[in-house]
């Protein structure tokens, strides 16, 4: 719920300030809105879902629900404060709230790390999730370092010798000096890729290798190919972060390695879908497939932007915005919206109906929401994302407003569908069991 509220807030910000997309992205409003979208919406939902999905996908139990609750509190305080302070461009306070967020992420990593240690059968999914967690830790550290690099440490002059704050401040100042050797824009791009590709995309790749076969009644077709895809993604990302930070001409090569990993991943997904037993796919899964469809143009655009010696013009800098928008608002957000159609109905069903199974006729998960609204919402959100990309490329504030309006309509339909699901908490639909029917026994007789 916190994530959905943050998404609504992000869209409101885009409507109020369309220049967030239509102007060059290195400004306080774009940075604030991006963090609200990425940490507030995507981060909240992804990390919340991981507490539920990782134990399911890896057949184990979560180490501690109590730590998860503390993480949630620190996450909310951290994100709200960071976004507010980014908007005011008070980087010192961003660092303070970012530290609260980082403390929450540390709890998250510890909790899931302990959970992963109990996995009975280590597999490619567990490897991918571990990699995503490692990249998340690096993303947060890089973010804190970037904030530290933008601060001044004049209080070091006034603090008495031996004061407990001196050493942390000296460490922060040293970090700031070291990071000052790099181009701040390049460092910010590296930070964005650590989070966007390292955490979110890696997580999508890993979890989908378990959930897509599960929901489509299929199987992983080639663990070797899936492993190679993950390996190339990690290798390519590590190289990309280094080459981006150093503004190296080899970032195109690093991007090529990443793209090769994505191609292998795409081939594995295609094989899984071809081998599926369930012919019709539900619209939650179709959200994910549409998101994957957007991954191809996003990756191609990323490769184009990594082309050695590409000049920085109004068009190319706006294309950087389009790349980020398609990746985060398109690929990751559509995937998250699709998986919310799996997670929310399950939670509602579990808390409302699980105890009535065998006693009453309870609705199926798909009965909790409207498929028609799902289709309408997907169409509008997709139109909004594509329209936003076009408007950003053209640097058109009017175009961004129209696209955001369409996106907001799509999200409104999505929230309505969410309301239909949550209504079952208050108005459960229980029916008497159907009378037994005469049917031939079809199991082994003992």
């Amino acid at each position, binding site marked *: 719920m916190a994530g959905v509220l943050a998404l609504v807030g992000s869209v409101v910000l885009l409507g109020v300030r369309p220049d967030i997309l239509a102007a060059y992205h290195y400004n306080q409003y774009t940075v604030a809105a991006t963090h609200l979208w990425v940490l507030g919406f995507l981060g909240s939902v992804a990390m919340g879902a991981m507490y539920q999905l990782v134990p*399911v996908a890896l057949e184990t139990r979560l180490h501690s629900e109590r730590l998860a609750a503390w993480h949630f509190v620190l996450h909310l305080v951290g994100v709200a404060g960071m976004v507010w302070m980014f908007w005011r461009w008070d980087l010192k306070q961003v660092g303070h709230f970012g530290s609260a967020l980082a403390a929450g992420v540390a709890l998250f990593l510890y909790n899931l790390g302990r959970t992963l240690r109990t996995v009975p059968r280590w597999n490619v999914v567990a490897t991918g999730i571990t990699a995503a967690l490692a990249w998340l830790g690096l993303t947060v550290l890089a973010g804190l370092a970037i904030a530290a690099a933008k601060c001044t440490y004049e209080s070091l002059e006034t603090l008495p010798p031996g004061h407990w704050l001196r050493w942390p401040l000296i460490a922060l100042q040293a970090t700031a000096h070291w990071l000052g050797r790099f181009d701040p824009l390049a460092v910010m791009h590296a930070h964005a890729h650590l989070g966007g590709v390292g955490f979110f995309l890696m997580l999508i790749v890993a979890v989908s290798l378990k959930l897509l076969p599960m929901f489509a009644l299929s199987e992983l077709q080639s663990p070797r190919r899936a492993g190679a895809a993950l390996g190339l993604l990690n290798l390519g990302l590590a190289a990309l972060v280094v080459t981006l930070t150093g503004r190296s001409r080899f970032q195109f090569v690093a991007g090529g390695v990443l793209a090769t990993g994505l191609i292998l991943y795409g081939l594995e997904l295609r094989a899984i879908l071809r081998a599926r037993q369930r012919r019709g796919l539900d619209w939650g899964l179709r959200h994910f497939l549409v998101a994957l469809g957007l991954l191809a143009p996003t990756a191609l655009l990323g490769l184009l932007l990594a082309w050695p010696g590409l000049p920085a013009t109004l068009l190319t800098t706006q294309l950087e915005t389009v790349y980020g928008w398609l990746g985060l608002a398109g690929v990751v957000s559509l995937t998250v919206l699709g998986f919310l159609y799996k997670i929310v109905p399950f939670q509602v069903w579990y808390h409302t109906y699980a105890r009535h*199974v065998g006693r009453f006729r309870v609705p199926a998960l798909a009965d909790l929401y409207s498929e028609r609204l799902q289709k309408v919402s997907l169409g509008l959100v997709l139109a909004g994302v594509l329209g936003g990309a076009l408007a950003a490329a053209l640097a058109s504030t009017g175009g961004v407003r129209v696209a955001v309006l369409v996106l907001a309509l799509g999200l409104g339909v999505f929230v309505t569908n969410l309301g239909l699901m949550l209504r079952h908490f208050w108005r459960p639909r229980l029916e008497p069991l159907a009378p037994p029917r005469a049917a031939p026994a079809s199991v082994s007789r003992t």
Partner: protein
Amino acid sequence: MKPLDETTVLDALRQVVDPELNCNLVDLGLVYSTEIRDGHVRVVMTLTTAGCPMHESLVEGVRTALRALDGVREVTVEVVWDPPWSPAMMTPEGRARLGLA
């Protein structure tokens, strides 16, 4: 009163539906065997995937549905993973319900 036999037990298990697939456990082919002895019903079953989030709910649903039958004094449910479930184990009714290939 209906006699407590396998047909009665399977009919009761048809009342337990996997909410993700919207198909009952018998037609999904999740029930491997049933055994009835002096009011004690033993069910050997599986789930579509190990680590299924519905595991506890479905197993408890099986117990509840069987305890409601006349003559049942005790229910034992054993969840096994060998042989692993595959869609080939579904009944024609189940396959039709899911629109399987």
